[in-house]
């Protein structure tokens, strides 16, 4: 036999040969998206950076603002505090996530289902909501410390100052590490481990030399995400009344001193630079050690069953973490039904009055949230689909830069976007003199931009799954590009798009960093803002908690819905290659 005739399979198409030039429609679409991104992402952020580097009043270039920043003790302390809190949150989040990931991927363990629930339960409650509830249990006069004081005569400062922020954030964000690390462990080709065993390696040496290096990139990805999220977060420190961190400082400068004060902008630039630097460092650290694409099979490590004492230990670890994770949920629920809950392990009595109040006078918050989050979700999947289509299916020059710009929103903290919008659009007035920045639609746009990177990835994935030949078949049978998109591409993307929409919706519904800057009147405020306002006064805590419960229900329901949609979509296409 001739060697050539035996080769099977077709040529992998390297791309289309001399594929058609961009159509006018594609150009218009790309320009439209570019204008959108420039107006609502690039321009506001550029404005923030520009203000930070110019002299107040004259507009001349200067570094004096940064000099002032470095000279002010408060800001330097705030920077190191933010850094410390983020780093410690990574440490504690790792302490929660590592054992859980190891247990599920190494052992055949019945409790694995509980661990999966642990993987998303914290995420459905925004951290600033959890902060209030945790204070009730772990605060100086919270349930735990009251009991400790009664029984042993001492208290533990779980929630004092920075401790509180670290505590709340690590409980909230450890799933990011858990999810990424578990995925990395699952993707390890089982043969990698078996080859090492075959060559005589076992136990801890096997773990150190093979498993750890292969899983490391997943861990680093999760850890850097936690670092950035915590570093940028505004709402949690504010609610815990911790002011000497960077994001709260930026907020306080702009809200108390005013929009012209350069310090808020300098802090914004520091926030952006640190976020970018952290992500960059993470990608640099894993650049030469990310073997995910080299590995073939996956299948994860070989699982063995646990010995009895190991089972007990595993359940003990899970129980402790589960209790911590559930604490804010229980606390919030109790608080929402409590008449008075102060200086006692549990509330004095229970009532539904808070819910009556929230659904009565404050139902506006809920309505606003539903409108804002839905609109933001719709904008996200529309823009996301358009960008994904241009990137994956056309040869338009510069199409990749749309993707890059939209994804860059990841590195922009919510408060920076908020400040940018205020600065850029407060001066722009409508025909009746209202500043553009005071319109509620601006909140929607900020939410949409913040969630766009995630929605874009969802749309990208949904489109990528569609084999190009499905579209070519439509064209071959007489459908134009436009008709093909309508009749084949969009219907096939529906499941992925719906999931992307729900994810955007759920996270936008509880976003506070950007909203806090942009809400101009109570009538336009969404739920997260209302919650923040309620929590400012002891009398409002009950109603705030009721709002928090509603927020959690909305996010939880959305999360379940998006899982169902993905699952149904996957099943409806099963069997198709």
């Amino acid at each position, binding site marked *: 036999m001739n060697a050539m005739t035996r080769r099977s399979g077709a040529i992998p198409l390297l791309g289309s*040969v001399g594929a058609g030039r961009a159509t006018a429609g594609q150009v218009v679409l790309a320009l439209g998206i570019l204008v959108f991104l420039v107006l609502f992402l690039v321009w506001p952020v550029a404005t923030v950076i520009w203000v930070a580097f110019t002299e107040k009043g004259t507009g001349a270039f200067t570094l004096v603002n940064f000099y002032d920043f470095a000279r002010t003790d408060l800001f330097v302390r705030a920077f190191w505090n933010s850094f410390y809190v983020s780093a410690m949150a990574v440490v504690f989040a790792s302490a929660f996530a590592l054992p859980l990931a190891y247990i599920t991927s190494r052992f055949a363990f019945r409790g694995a289902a509980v661990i999966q629930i642990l993987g998303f339960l914290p995420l459905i409650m925004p951290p600033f909501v959890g902060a209030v509830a945790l204070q009730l249990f772990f605060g100086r006069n919270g349930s735990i410390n009251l009991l400790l004081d009664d029984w042993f005569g001492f208290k533990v400062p779980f929630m004092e100052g920075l401790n509180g922020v670290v505590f709340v954030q690590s409980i909230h964000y450890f799933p990011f590490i858990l999810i990424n690390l578990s995925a990395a462990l699952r993707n390890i080709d089982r043969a990698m481990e078996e080859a090492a065993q075959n060559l005589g390696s076992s136990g801890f040496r096997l773990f150190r030399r093979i498993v750890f290096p292969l899983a490391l990139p997943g861990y680093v990805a999760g850890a850097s995400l936690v670092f950035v999220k915590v570093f940028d977060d505004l709402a949690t420190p504010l609610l815990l009344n911790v002011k000497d961190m960077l994001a709260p400082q930026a907020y306080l400068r702009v809200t108390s001193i005013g929009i012209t004060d350069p310090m808020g902008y300098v802090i914004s630039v520091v926030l952006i630079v640190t976020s970018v630097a952290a992500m960059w460092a993470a990608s640099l650290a894993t650049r030469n050690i990310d073997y995910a694409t080299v590995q073939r099979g996956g299948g994860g490590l070989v699982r063995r069953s646990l010995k009895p004492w190991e089972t007990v230990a595993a359940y003990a670890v899970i129980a402790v973490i589960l209790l911590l994770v559930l604490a804010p949920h229980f606390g919030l629920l109790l608080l929402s039904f409590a008449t008075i809950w102060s200086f006692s392990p549990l509330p004095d009595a229970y009532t539904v009055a808070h819910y009556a109040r929230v659904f009565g006078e404050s139902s506006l918050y809920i309505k606003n949230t539903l409108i804002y989050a839905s609109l933001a979700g719709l904008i996200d999947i529309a823009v996301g689909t358009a960008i994904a289509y241009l990137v994956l299916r056309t040869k338009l020059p510069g199409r990749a830069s749309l993707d890059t710009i939209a994804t860059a929103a990841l590195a922009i903290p919510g408060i920076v976007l908020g400040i940018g919008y205020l600065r850029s659009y407060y001066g722009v007035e409508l025909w009746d003199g209202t500043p553009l920045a005071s319109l509620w639609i601006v909140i929607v746009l900020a939410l949409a931009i913040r969630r766009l990177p995630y929605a874009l990835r969802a749309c990208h994935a949904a489109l990528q799954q569609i084999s190009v030949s499905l579209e070519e078949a439509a064209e071959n*049978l007489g459908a134009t590009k436009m008709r093909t998109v309508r009749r084949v591409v969009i219907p096939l993307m529906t499941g992925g798009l719906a999931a992307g929409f729900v994810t955007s919706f759920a996270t936008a519904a509880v976003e506070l960093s950007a909203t806090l800057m942009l809400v101009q009147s109570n009538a336009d405020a969404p739920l997260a803002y209302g919650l923040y306002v309620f929590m400012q006064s002891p009398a409002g805590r009950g109603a705030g908690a009721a709002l928090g419960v509603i927020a959690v229900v909305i996010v939880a329901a959305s999360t379940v819905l998006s899982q169902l949609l993905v699952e149904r979509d996957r099943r409806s296409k099963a069997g198709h290659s």
Partner: protein
Amino acid sequence: MADPALANDIQLKAVDLRIDDVSASYGDHRVLNHIDLDVRPGEFFALLGPSGCGKTTLLRTIAGFAQAEAGRILVGGNDLSKLPPWKRDVGMVFQSYALWPHLTVARNVAFGLEERRLPRADIARRVATALDFVGLGQLGERRPSELSGGQQQRVALARTIAIEPKILLLDEPLSNLDAKLRIQVRRELRSLQQRLGLTTILVTHDQEEANTICDRVAVMSAGEVQQVGTPAELYETPANLFVAQFLGTANVLEGRVVSAGGGRVFESSGGLRLSVAPETQIPDGARMVFRPQDASVVTGDAPADGSGLVSGRIVYREFLGSTLRYGIQAGGADLYVDAPFKTGVRPLAPGDQVTVSIAANSVKWLSA
């Protein structure tokens, strides 16, 4: 002349296809280099070649998914090369079948007709006719994922013929089927094509597939057509070394032609001598080519100056069923020689000293 099974609902006409000096590139890489082809009306025509030879690109150029830089594609005398894919009426059955998973089988078949804004009643009738034609009349309401691979392919074919294409393009139609089904489906494909009477272009890398289904074959390599002919012609009289080696197995010997005793003799660099008949034309630099079945092998050394005889040693033996193939090292070259396998006859074994004898009239003289 359509098959009665198509009634008058689907009217197909056999037209000719002319590829006229077509060239295409991917970046700096030339994938098609001045291709000329004439396909006759109603012919089943194969584009055959190894991976990367340009056959799929040529097919996609006909369908309009790849753009030719130069040249024309004439279907029934009309140049299609400037039309977008959706205006070409060139039916294509994709390698993956490309059935839309969100539509039922019937809706898949109806798609092209809906795009043509046909009246609803006509669409229903044509869909039914097309599905009946491929023997899937009962499965219209199923989803593609509920069908077997062979059934999916027939849906793809029904979907294509429903639009009354001018020609039919098949991209590696058998590659997604398992070996056993492949032989059955390729017969079905041939008979369906005969009943349709449509001019059909098939792309494949499998010579057996091309040989068994197609009327004529174009062998392609490196973006060029090496030879066009019936399967037997290509095998019998390959135009060059590539075709000889791509279709079946060929022994190739280098050497030179010298004058000896009033005649000509080919001397291989390994010591084989073969008298050349006076009327035989041997181009400069040509090599001696023969098929394994055109040589035979016997035990023992060859006589010193026997024409077409060469001594060698058996290196390996492959059992192919009805034949045995010997790999023989003979004077520096590796030769394949086939011998019939007969029950009770002890085959030769690796290590045996043998004489290979080549039938002079079966030898071809080919250059690269």
